């Protein structure tokens, strides 16, 4: 018998022993966790969560046109770290994220938040019988978990500086609400934010009144747990007004700019940070003679800070109308 043949027999014997070990079917024995290489594998057991995620900004993180444009198609490689990140538990909770090199089309996916480097998934319960071997990890619930990406744009710091932490309102309170308002229904993974008009409308309030010599317009951050907009340089919000007589006319010809909320990009050294901080109220008095008969005020939100024509912005076409207000004598 050749050496190779003898070796084969030894290995075969070992194989028998191993197979018996694995298949002997002792009650309670756990197979190793399944190997997960794509979030698509999560769909089978978690269809509702998967559907919520699939329609969320997280799933869209690699392909959405705003980030494509603002990052110059990710030529700015710093953006990759949060738009196709490695696992949070792999990099370290609270640490700035590092980029992954595969599955980038899946954006910020299930594995980003849940996969544990030692195998298994982080979850809200521990269940050794489930295929993905969830292990309860409290870190998932903490703002530090989101900070690896979202504090790069200072969102978590803005929240920390607000009154919301004292009221036990954190990232999940708004962005991962209970599906039907009760813990039993679980938390939604749709992650609503600036992509949701309802969310935007609840975040800010627009009001105004007649004052001596003009109109007082008041802008307030009433519901965002952070600055409005957040994500600093990549977003902007603008308030315009026009005389009441211009109602219905093309906005690009009639809107007059009142305020802009935005943090400058790193090269925009001549701009100042004008984000509307959490709980901040900003007031403007419009005394223009054209405003005498009343004004219309509109508050817009933009997912890209730039206008197609900076000299003649057209918010009706290029931005989302969040609130509008008519003030009449």
């Amino acid at each position, binding site marked *: 018998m050749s050496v190779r*043949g003898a070796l084969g027999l030894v290995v*075969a014997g070992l194989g*028998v022993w191993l197979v018996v070990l694995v298949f002997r079917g002792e009650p309670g024995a756990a197979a190793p966790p399944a190997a997960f290489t794509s979030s698509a594998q999560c769909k089978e057991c978690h269809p509702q969560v998967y559907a919520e995620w699939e329609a969320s900004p997280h799933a869209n993180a690699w392909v959405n046109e*705003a980030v494509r*444009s603002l990052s110059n198609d990710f030529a700015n490689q710093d953006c990759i770290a949060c738009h196709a990140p490695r696992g949070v538990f792999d990099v370290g909770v609270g640490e700035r994220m590092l980029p992954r090199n595969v*599955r980038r089309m899946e954006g910020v996916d299930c594995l980003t938040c849940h996969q544990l480097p030692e195998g298994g998934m982080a979850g809200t319960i521990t269940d050794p019988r489930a295929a993905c071997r969830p292990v309860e990890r409290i870190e998932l619930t903490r703002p530090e978990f989101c900070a690896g990406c979202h504090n*790069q744009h200072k969102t978590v710091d803005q929240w920390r500086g607000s009154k919301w932490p004292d009221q036990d309102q954190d990232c999940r309170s708004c962005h991962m609400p209970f599906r039907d308002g009760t813990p039993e229904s679980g938390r939604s993974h749709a992650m609503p934010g600036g992509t949701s008009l309802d969310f935007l409308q609840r975040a800010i309030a627009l009001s105004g009144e007649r004052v001596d010599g003009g109109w007082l317009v008041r802008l307030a951050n009433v519901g965002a747990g952070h600055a409005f907009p957040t994500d600093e340089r990549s977003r902007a919000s603008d308030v315009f007004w026009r005389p009441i007589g211009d109602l219905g006319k093309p906005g690009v010809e009639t809107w007059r700019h009142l305020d802009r909320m935005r943090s400058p990009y790193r090269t925009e050294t001549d701009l100042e940070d004008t984000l509307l901080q959490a709980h901040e109220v900003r007031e403007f008095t419009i005394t223009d003679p054209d405003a005498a008969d009343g004004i219309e005020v509109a508050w817009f939100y933009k997912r890209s800070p730039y206008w197609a024509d900076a000299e003649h912005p057209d918010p009706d076409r290029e931005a989302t109308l969040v609130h509008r207000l008519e003030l009449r004598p």
Partner: protein
Amino acid sequence: MSFRVVLSCCVAALAACGERAPTPEPITRPAPRFEPVIQRALAATAPPTEPPPAGEVDAEELSGLIAMFAGGDARFTEAAESSVAELSGDVAAALFALASDGADEERAAAIGLLGARGDAAAAARLVDLLRDGEPAWIRAHAAWRLGETDADQTVPALLLRLKYERDHEAVLWIADTLARFGNFAGAAVIERLAVDPATPAALQRSARAKQLELGELAQPPDGLGVVAAWERALLDVPERSRAFEHAVWSWIARLEEYQLRGVDDARFLLERSDPSVAKLLGQALLEPDRYVRVHAAQCLARMGPRGRAAEAQLVALLGDPLAAHEAAAALGRLDTATAEAELRRELQAGGVEVQVTAARALRWRLERAAPETRELLVELAADATSLPELRQAALESLAYLGELDREHLTALLDFAEDERFEADTTIRALRFWLGEHAPETLIAEFDALAPEGGEVVTWDARRRSRRARAALVREHLDALVGA
């Protein structure tokens, strides 16, 4: 014993006895031993503590020197230049104050005298003016006068101004001064100003003159322009001062910052630095802070062949799971046979993410790629069992290496059309290959199918474009790679 067990036994036995192609052993690269290199280097290169300048500056004498310098008579100018070096007191601060406010002639003279004095304090004040001086001619003057000093520690500050400076004349002088310090990162800007029809005529003349001077300063090898010679690390680098190294280490230290703005500044100037900086960046790859390692590797990747001094440390960094991917990307850009061999090792038996990076990184070898590299990429491209992104990366590199046959090209087009995969890199690889192998008319048609510009290109537009470009190449498959 169940049937399942018997079957498993047979499979195991067959596996052990059959003739099999040898599978490469997984690479076991030791994790690098990290140590606080930045802290040590900053301490080792720190300038000696000097006592504050003694005595008051004689304001009357300084005013006289300013007048002499501003007068325009060469003899007086020279006299003022040598006298200002003898003055006592905090002369740099006094000259800075004069440069910051007053009549233009006096401000220019004060900047000139700062350059003539040329010590560390004067150079630091010139850097302040270079950064914050208003109007723009102050910054241009500060850059010019820095070029008359020996203060090579100002090179990082000059490089950073290339990022922020918007005034073309100031940029021209920054690039010129950098060249005098043996850094040709601004040569491309000078070339652009020299040929751009939008450059004002006077500035264009200056740029053309500087372009000629650059050729003399750099002395590139025959047949190569300064820019190409600089990028290929073929230019001599003067010996750097300790102050230069200290300035560079101060910027390397910023690579660990959490907010990326400081990191981006540091990376901008470090990647535009001369090959001597690669040695320091290589040492920084051992820093305990993971972000320093990752960002230092990114700097080296962007340096390309200028980063070769860090080759050994980059190879060692392949053993660091958090930075191996960046190390592999940087090794590819070094474009050396050693780096190529290391990437091949990763490709054969490294972790999957590093394998993908290694496959992509090998494309930089172009026609210089070794036959083993080509064979390995061909094998990977054909291996239907491997990770699709690895096959995609291998096919893309084969396109750059000019190795695409019909089967490869078809597979590459499949990736270009498959919406499950990122296709930008694939489209770029196709475009490169077409550039070498397709008639100009086809290339023009391919380019015309790029997504329409504008502020935002939608994902749908991209999808349509990649499909249309893939379809176009398919139409010409026979002509391109034979039936």
